[in-house]
């Protein structure tokens, strides 16, 4: 059973992790919150599609077209099972960003009226903030923010008051910058009581936590394939069927239609109503393989593994605090995903990342597409290490040693 395999055995499935860097170092990949690495099975799925049954879907009557269509729809069914949704409620998009924009343009323009409020949080990635700024501008709605404290934990004392007059509550499942896992159950319950529709940015949720959209009772949930071992260019919008049925199409064209006349069109049923044009067939099928891989590991195991790694990282890096290491975020593995943001003495995050790079260690440096949060916290930039299924304690040891090296180079 894979769940009992060591992180090292899992890492063996990821070919990139076994290619030394140009300096001959072992690749220590600690940027999975930006994008995850891909197991051989996902790469093989892409190769098999293009080399064995590449054909357009939902059209051809020949064998390979039927095979492509079946694989494409089977991948959708896999994703649906993975998050406990119905297949008709799983819409393929390019990524979480496109899924959120789809809601903004389709559901948002139909439902948000002048004077309505859109409630989000101070933790959001630009992808779950800028679309709401645009929607508010177009509709005359106002934007409100649930505040976060210094550790990046949402302050929910005034949630009910903030929800008054709010048509939409849109927030991230897990903060990409600080790893905070937001209390979905409590927030969704409050939104239900206030009659607000709920959209979750799950780009950092589904890859790292068990997610059951029915149990969570969310209206919309968006995520990206490339952060969960799948390829780039494929993402998912989950939506409750009744809401999706009532929404107008977002993009128009082929595949999303039932009947077209010169003057008018009847649209296809769900989920294809929202999938205009030839879909990203190969990447959707390969995302199905990624979901198989994660399912075999078990999402409870994935969560427990990351929790253990974060706990180890906090412990391993603690001695460096005396030398100027500042660790941000909740610093509590019970409410934090495998993400750790930090700064070291007066070494700028970009310089730190460059020095770590010479040791083969990949971390992210900058504002992590959360500029308002960085501004609020007073951080011009942070370094961020993020963990996934293939990471081990040895990777965290490498990170700690890399920071020691930066201390030496910068004479801290």
């Amino acid at each position, binding site marked *: 059973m894979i769940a009992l395999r060591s992180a090292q055995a899992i890492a063996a499935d990821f070919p990139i992790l076994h290619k030394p860097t140009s300096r001959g170092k072992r690749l220590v990949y600690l940027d999975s919150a930006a994008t995850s690495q891909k197991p051989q099975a996902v790469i093989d799925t892409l190769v098999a599609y293009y080399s064995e049954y590449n054909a357009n879907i939902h059209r051809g009557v020949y064998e390979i077209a039927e095979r492509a269509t079946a694989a494409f729809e089977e991948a959708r069914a896999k994703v649906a099972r993975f998050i406990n949704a119905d297949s008709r409620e799983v819409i393929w998009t390019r990524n979480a960003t496109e899924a959120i924009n789809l809601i903004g343009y389709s559901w948002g323009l139909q439902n948000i009226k002048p004077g309505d409020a859109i409630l989000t949080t101070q933790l959001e990635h630009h992808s779950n903030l800028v679309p709401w700024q645009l929607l508010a501008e177009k509709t005359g709605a106002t934007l409100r923010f649930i505040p976060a404290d210094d550790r990046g934990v949402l302050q929910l004392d005034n949630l009910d008051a903030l929800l008054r007059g709010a048509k939409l509550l849109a927030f991230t499942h897990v903060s990409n910058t600080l790893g905070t896992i937001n209390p979905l159950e409590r927030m969704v319950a409050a939104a239900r009581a206030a009659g607000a529709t709920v959209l979750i940015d799950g780009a950092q949720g589904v890859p790292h936590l068990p997610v059951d959209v029915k149990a969570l009772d969310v209206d919309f949930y968006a995520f990206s394939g490339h952060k969960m071992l799948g390829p780039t260019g494929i993402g998912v919008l989950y939506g409750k069927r009744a809401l999706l049925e009532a929404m107008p199409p977002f993009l128009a064209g082929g595949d999303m239609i039932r009947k077209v006349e010169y003057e008018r069109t009847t649209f296809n049923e769900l989920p294809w109503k929202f999938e205009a044009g030839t879909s990203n067939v190969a990447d959707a099928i390969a995302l199905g393989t990624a979901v198989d891989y994660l399912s075999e590991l078990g999402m409870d195991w994935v969560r427990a593994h990351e929790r253990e790694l974060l706990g180890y990282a906090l412990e391993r890096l603690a001695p460096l605090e005396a030398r100027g290491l500042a660790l941000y975020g909740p610093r509590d593995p019970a409410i934090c995903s495998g993400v750790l943001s930090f700064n070291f003495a007066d070494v*700028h995050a*970009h*310089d730190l990342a460059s*020095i770590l790079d*010479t040791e083969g260690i990949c971390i992210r440096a*900058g504002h992590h597409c959360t500029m308002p949060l960085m501004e609020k916290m007073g951080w011009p*930039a942070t370094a961020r290490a993020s963990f996934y299924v293939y990471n081990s304690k040895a990777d965290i040891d490498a990170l700690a040693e890399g920071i020691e090296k930066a201390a030496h180079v910068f004479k801290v």
Partner: protein
Amino acid sequence: MDDFYRDFILDHYRNPRNFGHLTDPDASAEDLNPLCGDQIRMEFDVDAGGVVRDVRFSGKGCAISQASASMLTETIKGMRLEEIAKLSKDVVLENVGIGISPTRLKCATLGLRVAKSAAIGEIAGWPDEE
């Protein structure tokens, strides 16, 4: 890349030259690198002959952007605006020496871009793309 962070770079990073503001600058510009958020502002006192008599820079960012900007202020003091407008990225590379990686080149050239913008009175292109 670790060869890059030599003593004189760290010195310019931690003790930037000509850092701050002029009371009534004749020319100024500021910009940021949207990729990483590094910010630089440059202010010039220019005499009747178009010669930069005094320079100040301000901003925040990584050692590369701040040290490059600091060194650049020493280079351009006493130059004519037309000369500054014509400077290429080589002036920055000569200042900072070897070891800059392609992805960090924009950090190094941000100060130059801002100085050139101040010299010509409009936003200049990225020196590394010219």
